[in-house]
């Protein structure tokens, strides 16, 4: 059978960087094809070439056996290629219907066409079980539903080849499952799907064939049935990945953080956190597992001083944390940091770095007042030297401290943030989603850093929605659901089903 998409010898370089070198592989019609590789492996470049954002320096793209010229995304759409981006391209305050019609309004009078489009959308929704109301406004929809709108948009534009870029990064487990249901239906209808993902389990769960890229080249294109996660990981990184990282035996010290009866309500009196209580000891990693949005972010914000609790008691090294009065609450993150609480924030681009600052400037963010001299001036020569040492020991690439941090890959940005917080020699380290959007090789090095920190006697509170990560790092696991702690497990008791039930709100009884 004719493949739906075939890449023949695609090459693309940006300046001196070769993003794609002689990339060739084919994707069968009516199949789900996985595309994996570390950040910077060339997956996105390749997909951008297919979707018409970039033009290849050499090589051909064949659709149904025909060589095609795709010069811009209009060409791609006309050829039946649809792309669902990681960041949704939706107008928040418009309805689903309007978002779908945007760009294909056709004519001056909208009203007459609206009814027809609405009917068609309802028909598509029914056929693919998309469960989206065409008249709902985007900002009322959950992330999962917004993604379905993106998919709906592509089907409406009669896409036969659907590219999904990291579609599950923002989804809960249930939403992921229902997305996969939709993708399977697609496949049955003879459509072709290209799935870019970091999560190897998903590749095994849903794809028919998988292509692994590394350094701009295709390392392997194999049927999914004959491969394992380990094989894929090794191909991606180019060396075996250690699954069980070495760690010192579990030997927790004195309590570092004691949380008692912590409550948080928002302005509408909705409870975000209820009756949170736990103790964290020196030299242990306590992981908070849970579907994102169940109060973990709020808990981390309170513990780092970025947000005030409604009530409750926090004890750090035997002393109450000073929550002060509401009016001077915005100075708390500094107070907490000075006490020895370091924080790797969940949303690193929003909170953790100033994108327009250089790497060097970012390495002193939060510690600027500790480094100033008696005149209030910063010694940038010393800071540059400090930054170079830090970049070397944490293997931050490229090793240029004057580069704006926004130009670094997500993994390298995260290394800078973690390095900065580790360097402060904290007693307690709060770590939120340390490996979100980070490739496998970097995940390993971040995990090693965190374990080394634990072995040196630092108390670490980890929030992660990845159970794999929880299992790799935690000594104890707290599960959160709906703002409450629904259960606690020792690492020896790790059991995906039980944790899954607790994440869904089932109590231990």
């Amino acid at each position: 059978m004719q493949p739906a998409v075939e890449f023949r010898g695609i090459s693309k370089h940006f300046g001196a960087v070769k993003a794609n070198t002689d990339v060739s592989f084919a994707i069968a019609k009516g199949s789900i094809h996985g595309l994996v590789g570390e950040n910077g492996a060339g997956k996105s470049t390749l997909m951008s070439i297919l979707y018409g954002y970039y033009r290849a320096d050499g090589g051909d793209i064949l659709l149904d056996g025909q060589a095609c010229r795709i010069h811009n995304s209009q060409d791609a759409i006309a050829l039946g290629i649809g792309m669902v981006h990681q960041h949704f391209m939706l107008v928040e305050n418009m309805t689903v219907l309007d978002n779908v019609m945007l760009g294909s309004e056709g004519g001056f009078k909208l009203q007459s066409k609206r009814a027809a489009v609405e009917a068609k959308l309802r028909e598509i929704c029914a056929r693919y079980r998309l469960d989206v109301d065409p008249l709902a406004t985007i900002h009322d929809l959950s992330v999962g539903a917004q993604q379905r709108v993106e998919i709906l948009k592509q089907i409406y534009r009669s896409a036969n080849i659907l590219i999904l870029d990291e579609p599950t990064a923002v989804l809960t487990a249930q939403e992921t499952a229902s997305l996969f249901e939709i993708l399977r239906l697609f496949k049955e209808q003879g459509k072709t799907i290209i799935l870019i993902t970091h999560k190897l389990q998903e590749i095994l769960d849903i794809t028919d064939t998988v292509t692994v890229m590394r350094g701009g080249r295709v390392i392997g294109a194999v049927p999914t049935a004959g491969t394992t996660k380990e094989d894929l990981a090794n191909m991606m990184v180019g060396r075996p990945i250690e699954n069980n990282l070495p760690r010192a035996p579990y030997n927790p010290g004195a309590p570092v953080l004691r949380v008692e009866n912590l409550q948080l309500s928002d302005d509408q009196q909705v409870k975000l956190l209820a009756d949170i209580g736990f103790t964290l000891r020196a030299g242990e990693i306590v992981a908070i597992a849970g579907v994102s949005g169940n109060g973990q972010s709020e808990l981390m914000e309170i513990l780092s001083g970025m947000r005030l609790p409604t009530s409750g008691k926090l004890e750090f090294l035997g002393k109450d944390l000073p929550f002060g009065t509401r009016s001077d609450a915005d100075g708390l993150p500094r107070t907490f940091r000075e006490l020895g609480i370091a924080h790797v924030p969940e949303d690193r681009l929003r909170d953790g770095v100033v994108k327009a600052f250089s790497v060097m400037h970012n390495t002193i963010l939060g510690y600027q007042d500790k480094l100033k001299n008696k005149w209030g001036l910063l010694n940038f020569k010393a800071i540059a030297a400090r930054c170079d040492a830090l970049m070397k020991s944490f293997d931050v690439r490229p090793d240029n401290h004057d580069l704006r941090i926004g130009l670094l890959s997500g993994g390298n940005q995260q290394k800078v943030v973690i390095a900065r917080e580790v360097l402060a020699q904290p007693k307690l380290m709060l770590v939120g989603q340390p490996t979100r959007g980070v490739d496998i090789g970097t995940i390993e090095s971040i995990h090693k850093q965190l374990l080394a920190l634990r072995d040196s006697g630092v108390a670490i509170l980890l929030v992660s929605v990845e159970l794999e990560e929880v299992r790799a790092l935690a000594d104890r696991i707290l599960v959160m659901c709906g703002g409450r702690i629904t259960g606690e497990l020792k690492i020896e008791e790790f059991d995906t089903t039980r944790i899954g039930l607790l994440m869904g709100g089932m109590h231990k009884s």
Partner: protein
Amino acid sequence: MNKDLPRWATAFALPLLNLLSALLVTALVIHLLGESPTESLAILINSAVINPEGLSYTLFYASTFIFTGLAVSIAMEAGLFNIGAEGQMYFAGLGLTLAMLTFDSSLPALFLIPVGMIGAALFGALWAFVPGYLQAKRGSHVVVTTIMFNYIAAALMNTVIVKLVPPGEQNPASRAFAAAAEMPRLNQWFPVLGETPLNISFFLAIIALVIYGVVVSRSAWGFKLRATGLNKHAAHYAGIRISKMIIIVMLISGALAGLGSVNSIMGSTHYLSLNFVGGAGFIGIAIALMGRQHPVGIFLSALLFGSLTQGGFDLSLEKQNIPPETVILVQGLIILFCGAMENLYAPALAKLLKLKK
């Protein structure tokens, strides 16, 4: 900021191209007015830069513009668009004048100048405090409130000046200060400058530029200032007290705008008059934008606007068809090209540089 271009290109080549475009459009207008653009340019340059007396006027105007430019720039670094330098400088003139009217008969010159500066800075800061406070604590947008405060300042000064007019005078102005309250003029050391109001404020402006440069890019406080301007969330995470930062920056910004009035009043007129600011606060916005909040950039843009003010004045005297308002046209064009369309030539320049490689 354009990502593909080297620093020298964004810092110098682009502003220069934008400036030339503005001048080109001006040349066209002058041509349409029936005058020769080349001749006009020669008059402008001669009167603003080459003639020593003209140059001294250019520097005199630039001294004020440096202060207003700094005022707008430092607020911009914190992500605040202070449109109110005009009103802050105007209100500062009142502070300065009240200080002078109180002390000019009792204090020697050595003390009068600092007292005047303190009065100006204090009142300027006070006028910026309310918008700053409202932004920090109530979230009222500083652009809206500072514009409102420009109008309030204008209305207030109309009322206040009437009270300051000496009995028997018709002119809406305060009495002239004692001679001791005059800023020392530079022509007493450099007679070549001729009859000029250029005074030691020029050096004060240079000192202010240096302090600004050091504080913004070398100090821990400047680091926090810029972090707040670039990413409020990260600034909060880093333990910076954002509302306090906003209020302090607005106080400094208002004080800097206020110091501009020292040059205008104590350096030149020696009395408070109606509308003495004459748009210097608004020109500060253009200077901050064109100078990209960098001390050297602010200095050069202030010089440019100073020479336009001076040269344009002489131009309209010599060329009958060119009205005095032409200067405002040129200033407007410069703001248009350097502010609103600052990246007009960036893609072409990037392409050109790539070709050369």
